[in-house]
């Protein structure tokens, strides 16, 4: 599996700690935080490929609000929503706001990993598309050549 990074956001500490440990045991670069605000701070520090976001967190910023801010900070990062049954409608709203998909708790780690894998592939494909579009643009407009080095660095 490719190297990728995950940010897990959940106020249920027992769940959060365990899932972070299990991801890390599988050599996945994982960061866990317990609130939307902390998640946004973490995202200001560094890039993540995928965010696992619990949609229903009592107090503070709710999942949908956090999602909106995350998409502003890192538009290419895919967000997978985690939800209990009470908030399926909210999850659908989240999908409309650009979330990749949602998972219903309780969910096995294998299912989470599969979904994360899909999200990662989508992110890669998306980035690939943008890169190709930029190359095309460079061929058409050589004056914008200064971007090429930047693109090369990302590879």
């Amino acid at each position, binding site marked *: 599996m490719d190297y990728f990074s995950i940010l897990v956001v959940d106020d249920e500490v027992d769940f959060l700690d365990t899932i972070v440990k*299990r991801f890390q045991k599988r050599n996945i670069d994982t960061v866990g935080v317990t609130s939307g605000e902390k998640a946004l701070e973490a995202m200001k520090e560094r890039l993540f490929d995928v965010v696992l976001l619990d949609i229903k967190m009592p107090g503070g910023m709710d999942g949908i609000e956090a999602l909106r801010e995350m998409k502003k900070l890192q538009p290419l990062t895919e967000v997978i929503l985690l939800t*209990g049954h009470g908030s399926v409608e909210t999850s659908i709203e989240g999908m409309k706001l650009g979330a990749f998909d949602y998972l219903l708790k309780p969910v096995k780690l294998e299912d989470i990993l599969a979904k994360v894998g899909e999200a990662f592939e989508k992110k890669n494909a998306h980035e690939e598309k943008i890169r190709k579009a930029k190359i095309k643009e460079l061929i058409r407009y050589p004056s914008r050549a200064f971007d090429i080095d930047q693109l090369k660095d990302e590879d």
Partner: protein
Amino acid sequence: MESPSIEKEHLFSSFQKRIMFLTLTVSIAPLIILGITVYAQFAKYSRITAESQIRYMAQSQAESMDLFFRKQTAILNAMARTHSFDQMVDETFLSQVFDVINYRSGALIDIGVIDVTGMHRAYVGPYDLKDKNYSGQPWFDEVMSKGVFISDVFMGFRNFPHFIIAVRRSEGKHAWILRASIDQEKIEGIVKSAQVGRSGDAFLLNRDGIYQTNPRFEGPVLSKSDIDPRSFGGRMTLVEMTDEKNRPFLYAGSRLNENKWILIVKQAPEEMISGIFEVQIFEIIIITISALAILLTAFFTTRMSIRQLLQADEKASMFQAELLQMDKLAALGKLAAGVAHEINNPLAVILQQTGWIEDLLDEEDVRGSPNFEELQKAAEKIEHHVERARKVVHNMLGYARKMEPRMEDVDINQVLSQTIAFIENYSKTKNIRIDTHLYDSLPVIAGDQSKLQQVFLNLITNSIDAVGENGIIEIISWVDNDHIFVKITDNGPGFDEDVRKKLFDPFYTTKKAGEGTGLGLWVTYNIIDNMGGAIHPESQKGEGAAFTVDIPIIPPATK
């Protein structure tokens, strides 16, 4: 305490009585008032008419009488003035005069000439009255002084009722009298023509109240009448009096013969206004018929309205019961959603913790532990039961992942076929045959295929579980009036009314503990309800059960 239905019936019956009473009062009272008014007016005008009629009769008869007297007096006057005393005392000549007069009028019985001394000097007639002296008679002086005299009716020497007319002739220094007797029947004839109807009477009275003509009902001519002539003071007087039998009568009296006689016309008022009784009867008939018609109309219309009210009331009660049921299900749904969230979060933690245990068990030094397999099995068991709990919660929310109905083109027959194919192996193992009679040209509708699949799967699985082993399940589809119907019938044990009422309640199950969650039909109900449809269960205990799913047709074009 009375049961509500009896109470309601009582309420409606008193309501009906009140409406009837009001309708009758409001409609019949004016009818009666109108009847009375019309009757009173009619009676008033009838009375006026009757009075003027009787007045007119008395008047015209009196005029006829006056005319008769004037005519007789004029003839006698003419004879006396055109002939001398010497001519008239010649009885042969007088006889000729008598014949001439009687030839014209025929009213005279006899005629005579009386000299100034009162001596009857000449006489023509059937009696022997010549040489009788009248100087002592009161009328002699009157005729000598006034010139004309008409007597009352009397018997006289002749012994039958008659009256006399006498005129005076002054010839030079001496005067003489021409006197004639007139048959009383002549005036009787004139008076009798006013005796009309069954009770009408007409007669002449003199100033002493003696009958001058024969009345129709009372005592003969020349007898004394009960009527007081003084009651008839004026020229024409109308009086209402009772007769000896105490019946009311109208009397119209007209004075004649120099006020000596009164012509009286008598009539029972009710006879004259007999029309009033016809009006009375006619009115009573009309009012009775109208009242009866109003009564019947009021009765039937109130009965009809009450029946409609009862029906509406019944419908309202049914609707209310349905609403209550819906409310109950909605409340339970909310509760279930809350519970689901609260359960799912700890389940998620348990699942992850178990997963972590399994992760750790994977490490080599643990693998060597003698309890390794037991630990691994325990972790698997925990996962299995978390999965079981998760399923319960998922079911409870009606497959929450697809909560939002997706609109796609759905062929119900195809959904049924797929569902049956999916479940066929299961039914075969239990030796249950599934027969299908699907209507060929069911329209394609806009709907959520997977949800409909879930509905049919739940219903068919329930049927299979109800039958148990060795049975038949029949599935029919048809279209009726913008609705598609799917009926699933089994020959299982069926259910009774009590069970039917609770069928769609969540967590209600007739299956053994651990076999059913009691959520299948609840979820099914909610899916169909969301589509605007309905499920009709029907069964008799011991005679199988049938569920008819009613799905409104939403054409794909409008999705």
